[in-house]
């Protein structure tokens, strides 16, 4: 009886050591958590999460905030975050889970008065222009965050949906219905 107990204890100890060693030996050197989270966020920098940009939100998540506050990322981002953080994915904070259509800002250039307000609002410097000159959006840099629309005093900024072209077509042949039967 005693020997059995001793053997068990020794075994337990042995495996414990082995596991401990393995944990040290095969430790995965990863990015700091904040970096990893930040890499998953869409970087729209829109502030809809309640933080001034994606990185602050990443820091907040690392400190225990909810993972479901980023509307631009939608469900895909929540799922990725859930995987990373080892928690359950939950629906988007505050409703709609429909991934919105991607948009970019567009300035109606002949109406722009060159007040530079939009430049100050744009988190990624995607607008160029100067005082009292026509402004324009660099479409390839615009994240579609919407932040420039509100400040414009003459309402000349539109958010236009990005068109599906041959390069970003997702092979959805709408007419073919792939129905699942089993």
């Amino acid at each position, binding site marked *: 009886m005693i020997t059995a107990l001793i053997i068990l204890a020794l075994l337990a100890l042995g495996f414990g050591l082995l596991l401990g060693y393995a944990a040290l030996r095969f430790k995965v050197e990863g990015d700091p958590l904040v970096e990893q989270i930040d890499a998953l966020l869409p970087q729209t920098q829109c502030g809809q999460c309640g933080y001034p940009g994606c990185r602050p939100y990443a820091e907040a998540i690392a400190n225990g905030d909810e993972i479901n506050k980023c509307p631009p990322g939608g469900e895909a981002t929540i799922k990725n975050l859930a995987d990373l953080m080892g928690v359950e994915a939950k629906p988007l904070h505050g409703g709609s889970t429909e991934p919105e259509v991607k948009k970019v800002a567009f300035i109606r250039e002949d109406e722009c008065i060159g007040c530079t307000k939009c430049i100050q609002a744009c988190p990624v410097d995607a607008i160029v222009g100067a005082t009292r000159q026509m402004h324009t959006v660099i479409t390839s840099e615009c994240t579609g965050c919407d932040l420039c629309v509100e400040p414009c005093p003459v309402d*000349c900024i539109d958010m236009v949906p990005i068109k599906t072209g041959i390069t970003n077509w997702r092979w959805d042949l709408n007419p073919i219905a792939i129905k699942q039967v089993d």
Partner: protein
Amino acid sequence: MSMESLFNRLKAGRLFSFPGGVKPPERKALSNQTAIAALPLPDKLFVSLKQHIGVEGKVQVKEGDKVLKGQVLTASPNPFAVPVHAPTSGTVTRIGLHAAAHPSGLPEQTIEITPDGLGQWTTLSPIPNYAQLPKMKIIEAICNAGISGMGGAGFPTHLKISSKKDVEFLIINGVECEPYITADDRLMREHAWQIRQGIDILVHLLNPGAVLIAIEENKPEAIDAMRVACKDQSRYLVCPIPTRYPAGGEKQLIQNLLDREVPRKGLPIDVGVIMQNVGTCYAIADAIFSGKPLIERVVTLTGESLQAPGNYWVPLGTPVYHLLNQAKYVSSLQQKKRIIMGGPMMGFTLHTDLAPVVKTSNCVLVPSDQAMPLPPDEQSCIRCAACADACPASLLPQQLYWHAKANELERAQDFNLFDCIECGACAYVCPSDIPLVHYYRRAKADIRIQEQEKQKSDKARQRFEARNARLEREAEERKAKHAEAAERRRQAMQQPADNPQDKIAAALARVQAKKQAAQPDAVPEANEDKVAAAIARAKAKREAQQAQTGEPAKASALADDPKKAQVASAIARAKAKREAQQAQTTETVESASPAASDDAEAAKKARVAAAVARAKAKRDAEKADDAPESDAQPAENAQIDDADAAKKARVAAAVAKAKAKRDAEKADDAPESDAQPAENAQIDDVDAAKKARVAAALAKAKAKRDAEKAASTTETNHQPDDITQVDDAEAAKRARVKAAVARAKAKKAQQQDDPS
């Protein structure tokens, strides 16, 4: 295995093999019984700008232009661009979006030509003596003839054949393993000699160890014809290939003939092979010996719903409805119109019969519902692995399907999704009727889009961080400046100086001090140097363009864009004014008249300023050399009129010096600059023109503001001057501003009215 032993082995008729594959019913007899026939011209031709892998060229014609048969319609210096040509003579009736020959059915830029029925050729320049010409000339001729791969994906031929590596085998692909298609079969039967001539040209260019002409065994006539055409060449070998789909796939054919595998993400040349389609060889011979560009191709019109199936010479751009009419389409055999462009295994269905024939369209297939029933709904995968047994790439299609369907894109990539050649063999055999390839395509598209988004979000992050850093720095600098200013004010208070002369001197000293303070600050900021450089480059580029059209033309060039002219003249005036002020404040005596307000003076000033900018651009370009992301092109542009610039630079030497000094400061002060102008410069021609204009406007506006600032530092209030100098042009702009402000006010009022 060495080249020689491989060749001997093949000569003895011994091949290797490739895994998997299927043997669908061939149904080639439907279309290969008659000779290739010509078709009457359609009433409209739709020439897509992009008919190959790569980029489209720039349109060289306008709506309403008369074009001749074979006239080039697009051109581009980009090596990935291949021009397209007018398939016949006629009028360009429209340039715009038109349904493309693409599975998405989305429209693409297309030139619509209404034929005049004359078929008048443009001047052709054949080079039958090609062997005497440098190879680059031949490759250029092939590129200019618009030839891209005519078998599969449409890779630009001139890129393939300008390989620098040693070519052991040139493989001519006449396998045509897809059911129904017989275009290459008929072409080889009827035009074996011209194909042989095309091969000769390729051999001259590539100097391969041997030429293998691979033809599937089910085309005995084509094999005989090619054998006859090549019988005097001991290094040309016609290799009959056992009939099995997809034996004609590039990778499978190489494996089948040579037992070599193209490394993943590699090209055939990595295993010493270059492959060309027989149709491409034919087109090359056409281009070299008769100078004809690629404006028509053989298309197999086939399928049980056509009463006159066969092969036809079809001008590129011919809409499919015309082909169906010519081949007597019987609509009653299809419940819903189903037109397949390409073969039954890899072709795609068209969304509309307006889609035109392009360089890669080898077949238009219109099956009857009976001959090619629509697949029933998919059922569960029973893991029978029939798909894995059929896969020529030795993938595990059922696993790919599993992960693709579950949207586990990473796992799908682990199972080598991107090695799938989309041959369709797996979906062909799947007993559960799962559209496997469709799942793969979707997964691939999603992965590609995700990658693009990832790149974009990385860029957004960088920009966001750069902006934050900049804002922080600016805030600090402002703080420092304020502190300094306060300090100086205190000192000034201590020694009361009511002499205005002294006041000016003090102000000057402050300016000087500020300049000096700013300068050492700016030098370590390589980033901002780059920005300044980019701005200057953009400006210089524009001015160089203007300069090229001749100095006096500046005004006239601007004149055709009234708005631009207004802005420019306002800017020029502002500049002139600023320089005048500069002259005053720095007490540098210049020939410039003090109050430069008339336009003639302004124009002159603007010219001087342009020269300054050019000189600056040159210097900046040198500086920017070590800037990794700088694009050399604008800098080159700036150097075009160096000679001119140098002279003018001398004239404006003093101004330049002062300006250069302030420049660093300017960059510091520009709140809306940072990285984007530098990136602007990188954007390709089309965009660049517009953005450069914007950037130039920005730079000038900044200059103007600087002038104002300078004025205010001398405590001389020039602000009213500014307004008095406004002339009609300016007034117009003001009016616009006023209107805008009114609108804004209206908006605000509206918002206030709003109960919330």
